[in-house]
């Protein structure tokens, strides 16, 4: 999933493929890039880089949104080779991508901080998930003019660029949204119910039971196929428009092995409560004193259960698609030069199960990415950028810097990120990226 970040970064910041939105300066180039990000929606980095870390649950409870405390991790690495001619462009790349998230429910934080209220249940779900992919892809693009030359020989044609990128993606592991729940309720009548359940499934291309390194090769045979297609059109000299369809599915990846872990625990007191229990005991002991000398049964008013199934290693096929996106891009140069370039973007994402936890709308099937990049190229060899983006459910405020010496280009970016838009300005998370290209 984070591959998309990489791609976007590559496309929008560092690896300007071609056209005006993401121009390139080399006919042939190769290089590699690294990106990593970690974020949460409450704590600032500075909260942990201080002499005394204070975990004030009362404050957390008061200030934390209803989404709970979230933590996102993402990272990717890629290697690429591109050939850029005037009309045709080719490229191949290899990419490794990993991301994960967890969500601590707000209700649990409230309980730790404030306790409970009689007859009001505390219930929520604990989210955790993640996926890792390896991706091999190739791209081909061409540029052609559309339009006409009018009767005055004025050439109104404009260069349209289209690029098609088929990708073979290979899941290494996949943890879909587990069913983890918490429940606690204390009733006025004396009943108390507390329960916790965890049901985690880890899908892999090979079995984790008696794992053998030789089985890693199975990663390559379990991959799926999708493609990305994008097009750019220079509407005006100062405005380029683009559309990108990412991860259009052709064939799902198949993971045949699953490792399942199930746990549950509960404790309850029935509606008679503790006093009801002792009342029954008092009555029964009173009746026994009448001569009914029955064997006293071992009993307790608290009924507890704890179950942890043995870890199961099963063969169970699951199909995995990468989230499908449709993005609309633009590159606006208000000064009609490269000193100031505004690049807005909006993307619609479908079929990402993590969206249920970290999406804008809380649904598993739909989420949005959006943002704007402010870029400046005061010199041909120098490029600065400021990004304010929401990508993969994380808000990022990022500064980028690129030094393009043609034979070698160095791109560097660093920023703050968070699940919370506000917190993304306060350093709740950190993101950094680095890539180097060589070519001519």
């Amino acid at each position, binding site marked *: 999933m984070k591959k998309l970040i990489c791609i976007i970064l590559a496309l929008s910041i560092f690896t300007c493929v071609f056209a005006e939105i993401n121009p390139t300066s080399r006919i042939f180039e190769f290089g590699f890039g690294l990106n990593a990000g970690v974020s949460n929606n409450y704590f600032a980095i*500075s909260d942990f880089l201080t002499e005394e870390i*204070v975990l004030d*649950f009362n404050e957390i409870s008061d200030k934390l949104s209803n989404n709970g405390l979230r933590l996102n991790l993402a990272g990717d690495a890629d290697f690429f080779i591109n050939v850029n001619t005037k009309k045709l462009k080719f490229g191949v790349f290899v990419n490794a991508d990993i991301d994960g998230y967890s969500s601590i429910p707000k209700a649990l934080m409230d309980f730790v901080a*404030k306790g409970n209220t009689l007859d009001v249940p505390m219930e929520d779900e604990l989210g955790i998930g993640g996926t890792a992919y390896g991706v091999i892809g190739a791209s081909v693009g061409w540029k052609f003019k559309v339009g006409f030359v009018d009767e005055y020989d004025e050439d109104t044609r404009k260069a349209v660029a289209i690029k098609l990128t088929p990708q073979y993606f290979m899941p290494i592991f996949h943890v879909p949204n587990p069913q983890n729940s918490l429940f606690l309720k204390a009733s006025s009548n004396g009943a108390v119910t507390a329960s916790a359940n965890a049901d985690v499934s880890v899908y892999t291309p090979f079995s984790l039971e008696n794992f053998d390194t030789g089985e890693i090769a199975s990663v390559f045979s379990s991959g799926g196929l999708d493609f990305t297609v994008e097009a750019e059109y220079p509407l005006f000299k100062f405005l380029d428009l683009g559309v990108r369809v990412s991860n259009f599915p052709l064939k799902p990846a198949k993971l045949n092995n699953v490792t399942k872990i199930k746990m549950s625990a509960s404790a309850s007191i029935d509606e008679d409560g503790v*006093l009801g229990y002792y*009342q029954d005991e008092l*009555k029964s002991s009173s009746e026994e004193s009448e001569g009914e000398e029955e064997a006293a049964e071992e009993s307790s008013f608290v009924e507890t259960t704890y179950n942890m199934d043995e870890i199961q290693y099963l063969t169970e096929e699951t199909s995995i698609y990468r989230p499908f996106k449709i993005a609309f891009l633009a590159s606006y140069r208000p000064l009609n030069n490269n000193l100031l370039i505004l690049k807005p973007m909006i993307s619609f994402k479908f079929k990402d199960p993590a969206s249920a936890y970290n999406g804008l709308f809380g649904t598993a099937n739909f989420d949005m990415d959006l943002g704007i990049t402010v870029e400046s190229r005061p010199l041909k060899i120098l490029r600065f950028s400021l990004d304010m983006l929401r990508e993969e459910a994380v808000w990022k405020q990022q500064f980028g810097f690129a030094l393009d010496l043609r034979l070698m280009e160095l791109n560097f970016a660093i920023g703050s990120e968070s699940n919370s838009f506000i917190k993304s300005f306060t350093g709740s998370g950190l993101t950094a990226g680095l890539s180097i290209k060589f070519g001519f």
Partner: protein
Amino acid sequence: MKNKLYFLLGLLSLFMIISCNFQIPQKITVKTSPTVKASAGTVDLKVEDFITVEKIKDMVSKTEVEGLNVMEYKNSNTEAMTFLVHYPLEKVSFDISEQISQIQSSLENMNFTLDSESSSTSFQIPDINQSFDQTTTVELSASVIEEINNGMKPISLSYYDEGSGINIGFIPETGRTDYYSQTFGGLEDEISHIKFSMENDEDEALAEKIIFGENSKIIITFDQIVSNNPESANPYTVEITSFGLRDAEGNVIVQNTSISTELTDENPQIVLDMSNITLPTVSYIFFGIRTKGGDPTPEPLHTTTARVSISETTTIKEVTGFSLKEEDGETDTIINYAIPTQTIDLSSFDGIDMFKEAEIEDGNITINFDLPDVENWNGINAFLNLSVEQENGLNVTQTNVNLITTKTLTIPLNNQIINTNSITISGNAQFSVTNPGEDGNPSKITFEELGKIAIGIVGNVDINKFSTATVKIPSEYISKLQQTQEIEVPADLKTWVKEIAFDELSVEFEIDTTLPINNEIGLNVTSTAFDLDDTFSLCRTDESITTLVDKIEKTNFTILPRELGDYFDFSIGITLPNQTEVDGETYTTISNITSGENISFQVKKITPVINWNKIIVSPDGEMGSFSGMYPLETDENGEAVSGIDISVLGDYLKNLEFNEVSALIYLSSPLFEEIMSRTEESGLSGKVWATYKTDEEDLEGQTTYFMGSAEDEALVNFVETPVIDQNTTIYTEALPNPSAKVNFASILNAHPMDLRLNYDFALDEITILPEDLETLSENAAELKVDIILLLPLELNIAEGMSNAEIDLSQFIYPSESEESEENSGEGTEETVKDLLGRTEPIEIDEITEFLKDFSVSLEFDYENNLGIACSVVMEDTAANSKIPKKEFSIRKTASSEKIKLTKEEMEYVLKTYPFAPDLKLLITDDIKIPSFDKSPSIKMTVKMAVYADVDYTLDLTGNGEE
């Protein structure tokens, strides 16, 4: 321009770095202050869950006591919950009609029948009437053939030349050339006219005519025919080539032309098929011969005789003119044929299983004979000898029954003894033949079946009547004939009644029976209690009488109950006619009985009559007194029984006392009241008192008199006893005035142990007449002594005390016995659960380490409907206690109270084991628990809020924690 831009960027970066001021974390502080709330639920304690009729009953009576009953007492006079304890001390009925009724009923219900489904018992006399038939086949023709074969003389094969008058050998020798040889020579010729007659050596005809049937043959056996010279070179042979018989007229009777029989020295035979041929006495043989060889000299020898016999397989249809004689020729030969034995099995006859034996008065065996075509016989004699036998029973023989002239034979069985064994009928038939017969005609016999005579015998055994019949009485019925009824003599009767006088005691029997006339039934009635032993008999004297009635009777006598055994007993024995016992089996011999008769016997009705005229009542105690106690000192097994122990009340009811517990003593007897008013006798007097101990050390015990005193008895008035239904749980009627009323509260307030109620009453001798009882209502002939306790749950604070305390600790801290590990198997030590139900302290240091502060708030919401206002006081008397005295009040209404425990208090409570503070119920007002219908209860809901303030710092440098 570029330089300015670079400068600005660098300056911005510097500010950012300076402003960050990052440090490596050295401490982590966790802060939170949750308040966890929970409800302990609701406890709803109802009085009825703890104080019940059963519990009260268990408290006042450790053993099951008949009549003891405990119920709630509620009427308009009772405000507090009140229990009524009813103990019937004495209940004596002087109406002995109940016992007499039981005696009468038991006698009337005596059942002398074997089968409960049938009202009578019956004996089936077997109806022995059985027919039989058989056919005996007599092969008489074999005797005829044997007689003829044995008697028939040989045939002379000589030829008699009538012309020369010379007998010569009829067979020529080939070697001879003389006349004979030439005349008869020829090598082949027929020889005829040789006479063959069925005659004996005296030329007497053995049979005049025989008509043969199928498979009949005659065999001609030649005697030594030819004897050649051994040295002859041309031996002489003779061969028979045909053989036949002709009658006197020359007609061929039978012939065989295909014979090739050489006459040798070995008695050759020729067989003639005589099937369906009629052979007269005289016939003539003809036969063809063929000769060969022969020497002139010496002349070969040859014989001239042959013997004729009838083959054994021959069948004869008819034979005429023959006789069977012994060798002397004079004596008729008797031919015997055994008749197969006929068996009549009696085991399937109805009633035979009960039957033993009987003497036949009227019975016989009738036999019909059937010999075929006997009208055409002549000179034939046939006789039958017959025996009818039974092991140890029937034995009849009939001889020389002429089968020719007798068609039906009747053998009388009168005076014979018949038993259950099978009857066998056996015998033999004898035949003889005389020729000529008595009428001078030749004998003649024809055979329906070839050569055989079928003698048909059809018989019938028919027994109509027995002079006596002995039948077995089933062993299970023997016990029915001798029965005893016992009615327990009530202990009260012995205790209270001195004498009972009777006018009459009689038992009348009505018996239905179909026993024949003059068969006597014996009856015997005995009773030890009534000094009775009478025997009599009865029987039918006329056919029209089927019901026999008779009775035993005893008049004007008395019995002394105290000298009686345990029962009023009656034994009745019935003896059937001529009842005897042989080898462990019992039989009855019935006279004059018809075969097949079903004899029934039924004791239709027993009518006892017992009339008493006087009962003298006088208790068997000293001076006519009766006494008792509750509980008794020993139970029915003789085990010691302790008295009522309610000392436990002392543990709970300190400074609380019962105000009034009424003990009501009721003596009632309308009968005695009636008699005493009539006789002006002094009546009943006595005393009632309680004995108890105040504690274990009170060895002498206490005595409290409720009525009378140690020295004096109080005169008792008979009153009406309340009617208390044993099955009810609530008594709502007003109690009538008792004979005596005392306040039992002082004894209860003493919290007594080993409590017993004692009574002792004296009664003058009283005579009860039947008319005394007739005027009284049901149960009025009883004397009843009852004690009723009215126990209200109404307690007052003891005089001089401002309040009362109920120690709740013994409810809260139940002790459990656990086996000591050190003394496993040898003993136990008591483990006490403290207020929190623990048996060990709770280690909370690891928890409180994180807590800056915490407290527990308990909120008690209650609804009090017990009629008790009180305070619950918790006081920890431990020396190092950190818990101040805590108290909350429980009002008589619904309200709420709160108690808060601080951190210091909670730490003390949790760390201290056992935490067992004194828990007391402090009562300042009198207690009056309302009755059940107002549902006395206390309902309390306890809510708990635990506030915890966490402010914990973890020092990552390892320099300590806060």
